[in-house]
């Protein structure tokens, strides 16, 4: 027997009634800049900018002349019309490629506004794509991730999320819970028609959903590492060569380097790429007996950084000294190094790598060891999906609801499953309140 439900909420999110315009490429000088126009009058606005281009035929790039608001010629441009709904936003869209001069772009935007378009808010194009069902909220987030991707892993994760891999897992999870709810509601609303309440079926469905949520939540840590960078702290006594090693790794890896300002007593960070993963490398103050309160504070911070890092690089000189037990990696995966090996004699103990920053001896082995640690820390992604903080919070809310489900009392089990479904719906934007949408789109750049 089929059951009809209604949660009382429906997705009432449709695109705007006005036409928006923005540059889709970064601000500043460049070879080309792309101007995007979307909305019911996209073609009208574009026609004001490039009067002689035929915009009725879609998905064909055409050469045209860009004119300013007075009609004066500005540039030779390439214009592509995307009639809705087969466009990024699902609305009528036009993209104009101009030469990448900020002055030219500013004149073109001026002309578009004069023709009736409104400057787009950050993320507004993608927001309209969500509103028109072209993307769900999870995919929209991936668009932002992809735009910001700086490493191979970030791009890979964003691409799979944009392709809907994560959305699909959420959808399967949701469908499973809808089936559970149908089971309950069928038994409650059709009690006289021989439909027995199968508590064991409901229990099974709830447990399956919770297991899937747990599996998804488990990817959150890896997701954070990929999106924000895996934190790798260098820890060791004073004068063990930590800063030398730090500079060597930052220089050698040729990744984006942005050392934060700070005293030598503080934690210094730089972003590098190791094995396709963004890594935030942290140089710290040397540990040992503190001479003064400032140094003591530096050591406290060093230990704090190591304790919160995803992995720790232990750097001790080749003099047989060892980390204190509480410093030995803080339970994190660790790579242990004997530094200044060029100054030492004899052989290195098991489990330690011998490295000399001045001769370069052992540096390749160190890099391989670091790549192995990094790879093992993102391995739980399974190469496919990783949930973001926003996803994790919603999933955990759903799981908490399900955990409290009183399966023996169907009308209460239904409450728990409905509440869990609401959390999931918020996740995919199906019943997104305006606040959720605002939060998601707040981080977007304009033109996306």
């Amino acid at each position: 027997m089929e059951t009809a439900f209604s949660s009382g909420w429906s997705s009432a999110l449709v695109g705007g009634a006005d036409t928006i315009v923005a540059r889709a490429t970064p601000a500043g000088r460049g070879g080309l800049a792309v101007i995007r126009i979307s909305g019911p009058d996209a073609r009208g606005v574009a026609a004001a900018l490039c009067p002689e281009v035929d915009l009725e035929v879609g998905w064909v790039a055409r050469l045209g002349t860009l004119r300013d608001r007075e009609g004066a010629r500005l540039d030779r441009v390439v214009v592509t019309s995307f009639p809705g709904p087969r466009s990024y936003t699902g609305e009528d869209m036009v993209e104009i490629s101009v030469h990448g001069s900020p002055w030219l772009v500013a004149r073109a935007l001026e002309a578009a506004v004069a023709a009736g378009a409104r400057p787009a808010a950050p993320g507004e194009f993608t927001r309209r794509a969500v509103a028109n069902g072209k993307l769900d909220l999870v995919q929209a987030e991936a668009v932002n991730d992809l735009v910001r991707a700086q490493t191979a892993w970030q791009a890979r994760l964003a691409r799979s999320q944009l392709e809907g891999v994560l959305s699909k897992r959420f959808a399967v999870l949701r469908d499973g819970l809808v089936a559970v709810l149908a089971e309950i509601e069928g038994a409650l609303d059709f009690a006289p028609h021989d439909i027995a309440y199968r508590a064991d079926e409901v229990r099974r469905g709830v447990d399956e959903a919770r297991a899937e949520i747990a599996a998804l939540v488990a990817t959150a840590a890896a997701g954070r590492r990929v999106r924000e960078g895996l934190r790798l702290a260098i820890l060791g006594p004073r004068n063990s060569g930590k800063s030398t090693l730090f500079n060597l790794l930052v220089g050698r890896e040729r990744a984006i380097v942005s050392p934060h300002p700070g005293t030598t007593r503080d934690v210094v960070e730089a972003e590098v790429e190791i094995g396709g993963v963004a890594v935030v490398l942290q140089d710290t103050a040397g540990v040992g007996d503190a001479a003064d309160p400032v140094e003591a504070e530096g050591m406290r911070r060093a230990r704090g950084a190591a304790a919160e890092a995803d992995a720790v690089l232990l750097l001790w000189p080749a003099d047989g000294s060892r980390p204190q037990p509480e410093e030995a990696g803080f339970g994190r995966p660790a790579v242990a190094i004997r530094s200044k090996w060029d100054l030492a004699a004899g052989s290195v103990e098991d489990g330690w790598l011998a490295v000399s920053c001045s001769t370069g001896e052992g540096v390749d082995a160190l890099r391989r060891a670091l790549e192995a640690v990094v790879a093992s820390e993102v391995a739980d992604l399974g190469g496919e999906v990783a949930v973001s903080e926003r996803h994790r919070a919603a999933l955990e809310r759903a799981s908490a609801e399900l955990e409290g489900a009183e399966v023996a009392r169907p009308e209460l089990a239904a409450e728990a499953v409905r509440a869990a479904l609401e959390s999931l719906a918020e996740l995919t934007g199906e019943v997104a309140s305006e606040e959720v949408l605002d939060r998601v789109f707040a981080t977007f750049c304009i033109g996306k």
Partner: protein
Amino acid sequence: MVRDVVVVGGGHAGCEAAAAAARMGATVALVTLHRETIAQMPCNPAIGGIGKGHLVAELDALGGLQGWAADRAGLQFKVLNASRGPAVWGPRAQCDKARYSEIMRRVLGRLPRLEVVEGEVVGLLVGAGGVTGVRLAGGGRLRARTVILTTGTFLGGLLHRGAEREPGGRFGERPSLGLGAELAGLGLELRRFKTGTPPRLARRSLDLDGLQAQGGDEPPRPFSWRSRGVRNRVVCWLTRTPELVQTIIEDNLHRSPLFAGAIAGVGPRYCPSIEDKVVRFPHHRQHTVFLEPEGLDSESIYVNGLSTSLPRDVQEAVVRAVPGLERAQFLRYGYAVEYDVVAPHQVGRDLAVQSVPGLALAGQLLGTSGYEEAAALGWLAGVNAVLGGRGEAPWLAGRERAYLGVMVDDLVGREHVEPYRMFTSRAEHRLLLGIDSARQRLMADGVRLGLVRESVFHVERRRWRARERARETLEATAVTPDRGTRETLRELAGIELRAPTSWAGLLRRQDLDVDGLAARAPALSDLEPEDRRIVVGLLRYDGYLARHRREAARVERLRSVAIPAGWEPHRIPGLSREVVEQLERHRPRTLAEAERLPGMTPAALAILAGRIAREGAGG
């Protein structure tokens, strides 16, 4: 003479509309083809059920008649889902159809200011300001400030049985043909729906002895606060279709108007004909059939579960294949009826047609199915016709307050592809909307509208206050772990009481036999058995109830918010085009008014509220 209200149609919607309006002091004419066909039950001989019983309880708390009439005509009373918590209890009464109709006719006949007019409405009187009355066959006219149409399945009604086709509103009655065209002429969008009914069999021809008999609850529970005692007077019987039925139907499917394509209307998924069931659930080898008497002295047995529009010979073959029905004689064959409905998004939440002043609609004409849905909508239309005539705000209920609110909101705000039937799963605040709380939620409104006596309200209030006190006592008193109590708990629930706990805490955790415990829990022993189960049931709902109450309070607050003038709805992101159009056309001044617009969703309302809150904060 210009009456306040003219109601067209004497079915369940029409009766409640006319009675409510007249009792509120309006002058009313109820137009029906024949006085004898008032308040008929053309399909199953029962009122209530799960979801539907909730509507009856609410209507009763508001001063409607259906629950009381069902109590008077009741033959067997049963609360469905009685083993579950109070939110999903669904009271139902098998009724004597003739007596139900007779009771309703008598009540209507006694109401001052209400005149029953026998006649056929052939059209509407339409002036510049909207509808001003109705035209009767034979040239008569009835003028009214508001016309409420409750014509059920009569609009363009067409009966089907096999290849037989006959215009009709229901068995043996002519359809209304002109009125539909006139509504279309007023610009209203019509849709075609379908419903059906099973055969009626002669009781003396059935072999009931071998079948499973089903009695009512003891003691039986009446619907209405007006009813003192009710009695179970009949039993029903249960049988099942054998596999042979599947074969018979499959062999004759080409002769079914449903599957041969003769019926264009869409029928309800949840009330399928037997041919539907066989096609859609081929893996179900058996289908349950209930045999229900249509009256105390009636020979007629309603075959619940065998709704069909197959040809007569196939109906006979199917019925006679069922155990107990081998020698069944047909009093009437099953049939399907196709009819026009007015797409309900065209009425507001007060059930007035938005584009045609002076016209309101209720009942099956608006696309619902069932006596209970019709009655509740009829009551609402009648009350609002009177309030509108006085220039007062309409009576509305939100989704968080009543099933009536859920139903109207669903009808007005959503697309419907099949007749609408009430289910508890449609109410997201189901735990707040049990039959236990119907009077608490709505009776004060019944009093205010003049449809419930204030003295009754005070009696009822004492009852729910006693429940509240009992609950407080259960929270405050600890279970004394004396020997007697420990033994009782061990016997009833198999639990060993070690640490002291409050009664409420114990009852929340364990499914205990409440009546068995009552002797040990003084707070419970003073209550009626039903109230005991309500108190305990609600204890178990606690956490969820608190959440729903917060949400309900939030929605209630929304309603009082004013919308600033000079607003541009199309500039608000997140609203659907339909909602934007409605807002621009009607320019509501408060969120309460906005909510009344067709197509408005709770989500859209929340977006509006959020926008107002932010603009207000930012100046």
